[in-house]
C-alpha cells in the first residue's frame, strides 16, 4: 500500500513549513551579501562575492567578540561599504562608459584602483585618501575627522589594504554622482543610519543575540513583518532565556526579553497578545513553541469502530480494500483507528454510511473512557453535539439502558440525530434543553458526561479563528457558564446509585480558567471528590497555577496536549458524588444572598464555612488566592454590572459597580447558587429589575 493522496484532507495552501525553512537560505545569503546588490549583483564575479562576504564578516567580527570597539569605526566601515554599493549601482545608471571599468574595479581591486584613477578628478582622489586615513585611524581608536590624516597602512596585510582601497573607490564614485543633487555629507549620514540598522538586524541573526531598541521596533511595526527574521529572533531569544544568566545582555532585564518574545510569537503565529500571554503562562518556555507549532498542523484523522455493527478488524479490512491506509490508534483504545491517507473520501464510504464507524478525534474518546458507562444505566450527555461521544457511550453500553443526549442548540441536533440513527443507536433520547436547568428537567442519573462549551484553545488546529477572537472576557464568560453547568451536572447525578454516581467534566480548552478552576469550584460547592480518570497517560492537572492554589486532588485530572500526545488539547476530570445533599451553609446563604444577585464572573469565593464537606481541604492558600482574585474580578463584575444596568442612569450605574466590587465575594456564591439550584425564580432572578435596585445596599 503506497501513500496515496487523500482527497478528503484539504490541500495545504500557502508556504508550508518546509518552504519556510528553504526560504531561510535567502536570509543566510543576505547576511553575507550587501543588500543593495540587485542590479550590480550580476557584475560581481564569484571571487568578488566571496571577498565581499569576507569583508562583511570582518566588519562584524569585532562586535561579536565584544571587543571594545569604537562605534565610529564601525559606522565608517559601514559607510564605506554602503557607498561602495551605492556607487556600483549609480555608476551603472549614469555612465555607461564607466560601467566596464567599475566591473574591473570590483573584480580586481588592486588594479582597479589604478585604472579608475584617470577618470576621477584630483580632488576626489584626495578625498579618497582622506577616507582611507579615516578608516585606518578609527581602527587605532583615534577619533576620526576628515582633516586628520595618518598612515597606519603598514600594520595591515596587503590584501586588507587592497580591500579597503576598493571600498574607497566605490565611495568616491558615489560621491561623484551625489554631488549633483544633495550635499554629500547629508546623504552620507542618511546612508549611515540606514546601514546601521541593517547591520544590527543582521547581528541579531548572528550568534550573539541583541535586543532591538525601541526605535527599531517602531520602525519594524511600520513595515510588513519579516517572518524569517522573527523566526530567527524567536529562536535566539529562546536560547538566551534558557540560559539567562550567562547569555543575557547585562543591562536588559528578563522582562524585556520576554516581552519581545511574546510580541514575536504573536506576530509569527498570528495570535492575539492575550492568548500568547495565556499560553506562555501555561507552558514552560521550551514547550510554548512546540505547542504553537503543533497548532499549525492538523491532527491525524481518526475514526472509531462502531462495535454495535461491526468489529475493528473487519472494518479495517474493508477500508484497506477501499484503498485507505490505516493503523490501530494506540494501546489504550480498542476501537480507534488512525487514517494516514486514503484514496476515497473517508467520510462518504459505504461503510461510513452504513454506520460502521464514526469520524472522531482521538481526544474525544477519552472522556467516554473515563466515564466508563455500564450496561443498563441512566446516563446524561449534557452537551452532546455532534453525537460522537454519545454514540460511543451507547456502544459501550451495548445499546442498553437509557441515554439522554442534550444540547442547547437545536440546530446542532440534526447532526446528532443523523449520527445516532446511522450508527444504529437506539437507546437515546435527544433533547435541546438548557443544560443549566437540568436537575429540574430530569435528574437521578447514574453518570453524567459534561463536555462543556469552551473557548476551544485546545483545537486551534481545527479552528484557527480562536487565535485572534478570544479575549479575557470570552474566557471568563466560558468559565462562568462552565461553572453553572458543572453544578447542574452534579445535581443531576444520583449519588446513591449502586453502580454510578460519577460525573466526567471535559473541555477542549487548555486554559486553567476553564478547567482546574471550574473543577476546584465544584469541589467547594458540592459533595463531590475527584477520582482517577482511569486514563493512564496524559499530564496531571495543575494544583497550583500562578497565584491560584487548587485542591491537591486535582492531580488526578488529566490534560492532553497537541504537541505531546498528538491529539487535540483536552482536559478530563472525573468526579464522584458521595452525597445528594447540597452543602448546608450554602442554603443558608442563599436566602440572605438572593437579593444581591448579580452577574459575577467568578466562583472562587473563599471557603469560610466550618462545615466544608470535603476532607483535607486546604483553606489557607485558597482564601488567600481568592483575595487576590477578588481584586481582579472587580473589573469583570463591573462589566457585568454595566450590562445589567443598561438603560439606567449613569450615576446609578457607577454606584452599582462600586457595590458590586465590594460585594463580589458574597455575590459570587449566591449567584452561582441560583444558577445551580433552580429554586423558583433562581434563574430568572439574574435579570429581574427588582434585584438591581437592591444591589446597592450592602449585606455586610
Amino acid at each position, binding site marked *: 500500500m503506497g501513500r496515496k493522496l487523500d482527497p478528503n484532507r484539504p490541500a495545504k495552501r500557502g508556504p508550508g513549513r518546509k518552504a519556510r525553512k528553504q526560504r531561510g537560505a535567502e536570509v543566510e545569503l543576505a547576511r553575507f551579501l550587501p543588500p543593495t546588490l540587485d542590479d550590480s549583483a550580476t557584475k560581481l564575479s564569484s571571487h568578488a562575492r566571496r571577498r565581499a562576504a569576507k569583508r562583511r564578516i570582518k566588519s562584524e567580527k569585532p562586535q561579536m567578540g565584544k571587543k571594545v570597539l569604537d562605534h565610529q569605526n564601525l559606522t565608517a566601515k559601514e559607510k564605506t561599504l554602503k557607498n561602495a554599493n551605492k556607487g556600483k549601482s549609480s555608476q551603472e545608471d549614469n555612465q555607461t562608459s564607466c560601467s566596464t571599468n567599475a566591473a574591473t574595479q570590483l573584480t580586481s581591486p588592486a588594479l582597479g584602483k589604478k585604472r579608475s584613477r584617470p577618470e576621477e578628478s584630483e580632488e576626489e582622489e584626495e578625498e579618497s585618501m582622506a577616507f582611507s586615513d579615516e578608516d585606518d585611524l578609527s581602527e587605532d581608536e583615534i577619533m576620526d575627522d576628515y582633516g586628520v590624516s595618518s598612515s597606519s597602512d603598514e600594520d595591515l596585510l596587503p590584501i586588507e589594504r587592497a580591500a579597503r582601497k576598493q571600498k574607497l573607490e566605490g565611495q568616491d564614485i558615489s560621491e561623484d554622482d551625489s554631488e549633483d543633487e544633495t550635499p554629500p555629507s547629508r546623504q552620507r549620514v542618511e546612508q549611515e543610519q540606514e546601514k546601521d540598522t541593517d547591520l544590527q538586524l543582521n547581528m541579531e541573526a548572528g550568534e550573539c543575540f541583541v535586543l532591538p531598541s525601541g526605535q527599531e521596533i517602531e520602525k519594524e511595526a511600520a513595515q510588513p513583518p519579516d517572518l524569517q527574521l522573527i523566526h530567527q529572533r524567536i529562536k535566539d531569544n529562546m536560547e538566551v532565556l534558557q540560559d539567562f544568566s550567562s547569555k543575557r545582555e547585562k543591562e536588559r532585564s528578563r522582562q524585556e526579553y520576554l516581552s519581545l518574545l511574546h510580541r514575536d510569537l504573536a506576530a509569527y503565529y498570528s495570535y492575539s497578545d492575550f492568548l500568547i500571554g495565556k499560553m506562555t503562562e501555561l507552558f514552560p518556555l521550551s514547550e510554548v513553541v512546540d505547542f504553537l507549532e503543533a497548532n499549525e498542523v492538523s491532527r491525524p484523522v481518526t475514526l472509531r469502530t462502531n462495535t454495535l455493527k461491526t468489529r475493528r478488524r473487519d472494518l479495517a479490512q474493508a477500508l484497506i480494500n477501499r484503498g485507505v491506509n490505516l493503523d490501530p490508534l494506540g494501546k489504550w483504545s480498542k476501537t480507534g483507528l488512525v487514517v494516514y491517507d486514503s484514496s476515497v473520501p473517508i*467520510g462518504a464510504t459505504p461503510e461510513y454510511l*452504513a454506520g460502521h464507524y464514526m469520524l472522531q478525534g482521538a481526544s474525544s474518546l477519552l472522556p467516554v473512557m473515563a466515564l466508563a458507562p455500564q450496561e443498563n444505566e441512566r446516563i446524561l450527555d449534557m452537551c452532546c453535539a455532534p453525537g460522537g461521544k454519545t454514540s460511543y457511550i451507547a456502544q459501550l453500553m451495548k445499546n442498553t439502558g437509557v441515554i*439522554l443526549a442534550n444540547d442547547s442548540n437545536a440546530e446542532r441536533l440534526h447532526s446528532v440525530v443523523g449520527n445516532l440513527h446511522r450508527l*444504529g443507536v437506539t437507546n*437515546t433520547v*435527544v433533547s435541546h434543553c438548557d443544560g443549566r436547568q437540568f436537575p429540574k428537567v430530569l435528574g437521578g442519573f447514574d453518570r453524567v458526561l459534561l463536555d462543556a462549551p469552551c473557548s476551544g484553545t485546545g483545537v486551534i488546529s481545527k479552528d484557527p479563528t480562536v487565535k485572534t477572537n478570544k479575549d479575557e472576557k470570552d474566557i471568563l464568560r466560558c468559565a462562568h457558564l462552565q461553572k453553572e453547568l458543572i453544578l447542574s451536572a452534579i445535581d443531576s447525578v444520583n449519588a446513591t446509585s449502586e453502580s454510578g454516581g460519577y460525573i466526567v467534566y471535559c473541555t477542549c480548552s487548555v486554559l486553567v480558567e476553564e478547567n482546574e478552576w471550574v473543577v476546584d469550584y465544584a469541589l467547594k460547592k458540592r459533595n463531590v471528590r475527584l477520582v482517577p480518570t482511569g486514563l493512564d497517560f496524559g499530564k496531571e492537572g495543575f494544583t497550583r497555577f500562578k497565584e491560584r492554589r487548587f485542591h491537591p486532588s486535582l492531580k488526578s485530572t488529566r490534560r492532553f496536549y497537541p504537541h505531546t500526545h498528538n491529539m487535540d488539547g483536552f482536559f478530563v476530570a472525573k468526579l464522584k458524588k458521595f452525597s445528594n445533599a447540597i452543602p448546608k451553609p450554602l442554603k443558608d446563604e442563599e436566602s440572605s444572598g438572593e437579593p444581591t444577585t448579580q452577574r459575577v464572573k467568578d466562583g472562587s469565593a473563599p471557603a469560610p464555612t466550618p462545615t466544608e464537606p470535603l476532607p483535607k481541604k486546604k483553606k489557607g492558600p485558597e482564601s488567600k488566592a481568592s483575595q487576590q482574585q477578588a481584586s481582579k474580578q472587580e473589573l469583570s463584575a463591573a462589566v457585568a454590572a454595566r450590562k445589567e444596568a443598561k438603560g439606567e442612569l449613569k450615576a446609578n450605574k457607577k454606584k452599582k459597580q462600586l457595590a458590586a466590587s465590594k460585594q463580589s465575594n458574597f455575590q459570587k456564591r449566591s449567584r452561582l447558587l441560583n444558577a445551580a439550584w433552580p429554586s423558583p425564580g433562581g434563574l430568572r432572578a439574574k435579570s429581574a429589575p427588582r434585584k438591581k435596585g437592591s444591589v446597592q445596599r450592602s449585606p455586610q
Partner: protein
Amino acid sequence: DRVYYLSERLLKLATNIPRDNLASLGTCFGKFTKSQKFRLHITALDYLAPYAKYKVWVKPGAEQSFLYGNHLLKSGLGRITESTAQYQGVVVYSMADVPLGFGVAAKTTQECRKVDPMAIVVFHQADIGEYIRHEETLT
C-alpha cells in the same frame, strides 16, 4: 406525525422532557405525509433489512452510484431474489451484505435476465447516502 420505535423505559424517561425540547428518541421509522400516507425513512433500514423477503444485491462498482441516489441498472445488479414480482419493494444490499437502502423492482426476476445492461432494474427509493445528503430532514 413521526413514528418512532423505542423501548418503554426510554419512553418513560422521555415523558419528562417538554415536548418542544424533544428532538428525537429511539429510532425514527417514518412519517405520515400530509395525505396521511405512511412513508418509511432510511433510518428504519436496520430494523427492516433482516426481515426483507425480497432482496437485491449490488455489485461493488455500482454501490457508489446507488448511494448517490441513482436507479440501479442491470449492469450493476449482482443478485436478485428469485420470483420477485414487478414493482415489489426490495431492500438493496451490497455484495458484502451491508444494507444500502430501499428500492422497487422495475422488472421481475425473469425479465431481468433478458434486458440489456443499461436498463433500470430497481428504482431508487431511499439509501443510506441520505445520512449525508439530507441530514437536516432525516427524521
